[in-house]
Each structure stands twice: as C-alpha cells, then as structure tokens.
C-alpha cells in the first residue's frame, strides 16, 4: 500500500512538469506584447526595456522557464498589475466562492444522483426507471449556461412573490455586511502572512463563516443565493452519477453473492443497501472525483451568469484582458489541484478495493 502511494505520487511529477510547461507556453504564446499588456498601452520603450530586463524576458527561453519554475516552487505567483495585488491575495479572495459553489453542487448531485440510480436499478425497466433515465439523458445534454439562465428566469421572475422566489445573482443580498469570524472572536492577526491568508480564506467561505459567528440570517441568505448556481453546475454530474449508479448497481445485483444474501432470508432493502451498494459505489468514486474538475469548467460559465466573482470568472476576464500573470498562475493552481484530486481518487480506490491492492 505504502509503496503504491509513493509510486503513484512520483508518477504524477512528469504530469506536473508538463503542466508547468504548458502554462508557461500559454503565457508566452498569448498574442501581443507582454510589457504593454501588463503595464498598459502607454508604456514607453524605456519603461518596457526595463520591464523586460527585470522579468528576464530577454534571457534565453529555457532560462525563462527555469526562473518560472523557481518562482512557482517558492510560492511566488507574481503580482497582477491590473489589480495591483499579489496573485495569491486574489486567489484567497476568489477561490472560496468557487470552492463553495463546487462543494454545494457536488453535494446536490451526489445526494440526489445516488438514490435515483439505486431506485432505477432496483425497479429496473419500471416507469420510474425509464422516467429517471429520460431525465438523466436530458440533464446530460443541457448546456450549463442555458440551464442557469432558465433557472434564473423561472425562480427570480416567474415565481416572484411566491415562497419559491430565489435571487438570480450575487453571493449575498445587497447591504448585508459579513464580519470575518476571527475579528468577531477578537483574534488579533497581522495583516499579512500565511496565517492571515488562511483565516481570510475561511472567513470568505460564507456558509462556514456564518456558522462560526452564529448568524443564521447570513447563512440562510448565502444558501438561498447558492441554490440556483449549484443546481446549474450540478445537473450534468447529477445525471452522470445517476446513470453510473444504475448501471453499476445492475451489474452487482445480478451477481451470485446477492442471490445468496437474499436466499438466506435477508431483507431486500438490507441486501441492496448493505451488500450491493458498497460494491457498486467503487466506480462512482472515480466519477465523483473527476466531476470536481468539470465543476471548475462549469464554474466559468455559471459564475458569469450569476454574477459571482470566483476563480472561473476572473480567469476568463483575465484571458480577454490579457493579464498574463493571473492566467498563468490560476491555470497552474487549477491544474495542480486537478492532479492532486486524481491522486486522491487513485489512492482511495486502492484503499476501497482490495483487488486493486493485491495486483
């Protein structure tokens, strides 16, 4: 087990190196002059020469790549001129929104998808099964941005003045001020440094922060704002999870040990939930892990529609505004996150399935 983990961790290094190379290449290949893109159109030649020299842009390309890797390894993601802030600070501000959105969307798709899949498999070929699978097929085929817009229209306009009305944009209602939990608790933290960033990051996760400061009105408001985006992002994974659970359950339910369990007199529900589901869930771990990456892609579109200032939106805006520093460092962070996620999925698979371990 231990050797497997070590081997798996080592094997992800070439991928990490490749990711750094690709993001470096993207940064260098973006059209336009990097100096004027970062400092603005009005930068003079002298200023630009100095800028290019300072950032090593006049050095050989391999040296530039080396400098880039050194900077990333030391946690220095650069400074965005457009926001005049270090990128790490922007990341601390924006990542909580995306993380919160992705986690709620994932909870929605898993908590609904797995039961739907189980019911479809148990009642195979019944009208419930056919209906669920039809909805799942439609769900997989819907463009995220369209679903988001339609949900916004339905819940913000058509259902206006009913209990079902939901806000179509933002993370909180206008005018709602949320104090950070560490300030409420009276902690005195220096304005910079790792600890401050960590606390700031947690305090920007509205749901967690509102629980920590015991403000249910903020919690309720944050949840209400997250429902529509989370449904929009979570619908495709929901459909995929429901379909996967169904087919994997059907496979398992047909096996001899399930028959044996039934034959020895166990209740149907206990056989389904205890004997079959455990084995059927294995392939789902991979799907759920990988969907988190898809959530990030979906976040670009959903955040644009629902006016959420998260990672996806800023990344898209930075690409169009040619903010190289943000594009490069955010892509690196996302891709590394993705690689680590794959690693966790693989390792948890070994942990969950003894057969893989033995191989």
């Amino acid at each position: 087990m231990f050797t497997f983990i070590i081997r798996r961790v080592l094997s992800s290094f070439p991928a990490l190196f490749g990711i750094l190379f690709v993001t470096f290449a993207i940064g260098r290949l973006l059209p336009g002059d990097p100096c004027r893109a970062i400092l603005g159109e009005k930068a003079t030649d002298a200023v630009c020469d100095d800028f290019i020299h300072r950032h090593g842009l006049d050095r050989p390309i391999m040296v530039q790549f080396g400098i880039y890797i050194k900077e990333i390894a030391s946690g220095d993601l650069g400074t965005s001129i457009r926001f005049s802030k270090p990128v790490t600070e922007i990341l601390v501000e924006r990542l909580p929104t995306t993380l919160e959105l992705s986690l709620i969307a994932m909870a929605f798709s898993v908590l609904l998808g797995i039961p739907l899949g189980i019911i479809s498999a148990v009642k195979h070929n019944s009208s419930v099964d056919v209906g669920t699978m039809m909805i799942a097929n439609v769900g997989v085929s819907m463009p995220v941005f369209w679903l988001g817009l339609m949900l916004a229209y339905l819940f913000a306009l058509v259902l206006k003045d009913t209990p079902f009305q939901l806000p179509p944009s933002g993370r909180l209602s206008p005018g709602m001020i949320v104090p950070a939990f560490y300030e409420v608790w009276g902690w005195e933290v220096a304005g910079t440094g790792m600890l401050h960033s960590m606390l700031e990051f947690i305090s920007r996760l509205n749901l967690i922060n509102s629980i920590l400061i015991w403000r249910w009105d903020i919690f309720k408001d944050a949840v209400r704002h997250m429902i529509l985006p989370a449904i929009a992002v979570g619908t495709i994974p929901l459909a995929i999870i429901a379909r996967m659970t169904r087919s994997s359950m059907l496979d398992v339910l047909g096996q001899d040990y399930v028959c044996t369990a039934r034959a020895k007199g166990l209740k149907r529900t206990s056989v389904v939930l205890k004997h079959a589901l455990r084995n059927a869930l294995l392939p789902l771990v991979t799907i759920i892990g990988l969907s988190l990456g898809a959530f990030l892609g979906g976040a670009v579109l959903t955040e644009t529609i629902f006016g959420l200032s998260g990672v996806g939106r800023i990344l898209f805006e930075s690409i169009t505004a040619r903010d190289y520093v943000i594009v490069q460092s955010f892509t690196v962070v996302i891709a590394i996150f993705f690689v680590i996620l794959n690693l966790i999925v693989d390792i948890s698979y070994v942990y969950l399935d003894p057969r893989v371990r033995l191989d």
Partner: protein
Amino acid sequence: MTSLIEKNANSSPVVQLEAESLRSTESVTLWKTAMRRLFKRKSALVGMGILGFLLFIAVFAPLIAPYDPIQVLIGIEPVKVRQPPCIHLFGCPEVLPQHIMGIDGNVRDQYSRILFGARLSLMVGIVSVSFAIVIGTILGSIAGYLGGPIDNVIMRIMDVLLAFPSLLLAIAIVSILGPGLINALIAIAIVSIPAYARVVRSTVLTVREMEFVEASRSLGGGTFYILFGRILPNSLTPLIVQGTLGIATAILDAAALSFLGLGAQPPMPEWGTMLGSERNQVFTAPHLVFFPGLAIMLTVLGFNLLGDGMRDALDPRLAMRGAE
C-alpha cells in the same frame, strides 16, 4: 443444430467440410447484428430520429427558413426589437407577420436563424471530432503498438492535456489563436485528442497480442500494414461509440465558447453566440435565450442517445447477455 455440427465435425473430413458450409450460411457479420440490435433500442431510434430531423433542417434550411438569417427587418415589416413570438394559430392577429420564435435584438427572424444554426452546430461537432479522431488514432496506435519510451512520451503528453479542465484549456487555446469559429473548432479538437488516443491505445494493446496479428507478422507484414490494415479495423468499435458521444460534448463546448464570445462571431447564426449576445435580456425577452438553448439541447441529446445505443449494440458482452 450446434450439437449436430459438433458431432459431424469430429467424424470425417468430408462431413467436416459440409459442416463448415452449414456454418457459413448462418454467419452474420458483426455490423449486421449490431445494426439489428441498434434498431431494436428505442432510445437509439429516438436519437436517430432527432439527428435525421436536424440533418434535414441543416440541408434544406434555405428552403424551409422564411427569412434570410442575417436580414435585418427594419423598414421591411412592422416588427419591434426583441418582439415575442407571433403565431397566427395561437391568436396572433393575421395582419401582423408571423414569427414563430420572435424577433432578436438586431430585428432578425429568430426562427430562420435557429434553422441555419443547425448547419453550424452539426459541422462544428462532426469536423472537430473527426480531426481529433484522426490525430488521436495515429498517436494512440503508435503508442500502443510500439510501446516503450515512445508510448511513455505520447501518453504523458496526453496526461498533461487531460490534467486541465477541458473548457478552460479550450479557452486558453482560443485566446492564443484568436476568437473565431475555426479556432474554436481547432481548440475543441485539440482538447479531445487525449480521449481518442487513450481508447485506441488500450484496444491496440489487446488486439496486437491476438493470433491473427501474429500470423500477419509471420507472413512478413510490415509494421505500417499490420497496424493500419490489421489492428486498427479491429479497434474501430470503441472509437465509433466514443466519437458519437464526443460529438455531443464538442457541440456543447463549442456553444460554450461562442457563448463567452470566443467562438462564432456575430452575425453568424450560431446557437451559442445567439444565446450569449441576448443573455442579459433573459428577464425581458426569454424567448431569445430559450429557443437557441433548446436547439443545442436537442442536438446534443440526439448524439447522446445514439451513442449510448451504439455502445449497447456494439458491446459484445452485452450482446452475449442478450443472446442467453
């Protein structure tokens, strides 16, 4: 029948020959059985129906569409900007011109634009996936057949491409190439190459160990011939399934890129672009968002249903189960 054949097969050479001929008259090709099974699946039939309908629309768009998709109707007809649908059958006054999906922000007939959009979406899906299949097949088969360091290098590059969320990578590629339909198409193709390379590699790995490949090799077949003439035709099945489902994803991604303003540019009647340019009007003119999205969904649904049906029909394991 089978037992008779087996019994005869063990007796004399003459009878064995007869038995062989008996068997050959009964033989059915893989494709025939697959097609028969495909036509038995209701969902696949629905998928084919939807796609047939879309293909018809795409081909005959100029004949069906009542207006030119980029014609501005100001001064030609008494219509207003973003006017909701006017259908005579549902009580819209006969004196007003009929626009069953309403008028868009530039005073053009939305219905005609949607019809012409079918051409673009089908084209984008099929062309980008074909491109990805060709490159992915070449890379995957070389990696799978040659193995060793070449396999390692190719597959690690594919891993790197897979490490990025596909839409983000596509956005990055388009921003390098510049916005536009063709560049979006190339970006989507590049992003989907790894999936095909992996599928082809894994099947090549299995097929290359089979006896018929060994036979070809011992008969003196060259690498190129064995790879593309013997092994690849036998790895087509998963590729076709993956390709059909891939078209669905490609259409969705292309629509997303266009929605963000990176794909097809106005006034092109592309569904994603149409949706993107009117998205801020969703509360005042929902029809301008609803119809393009519905069209995208239907197209993607068609490819998904057909792809799923094909997977079931072409999967020998499922076929065996059906035969039991």
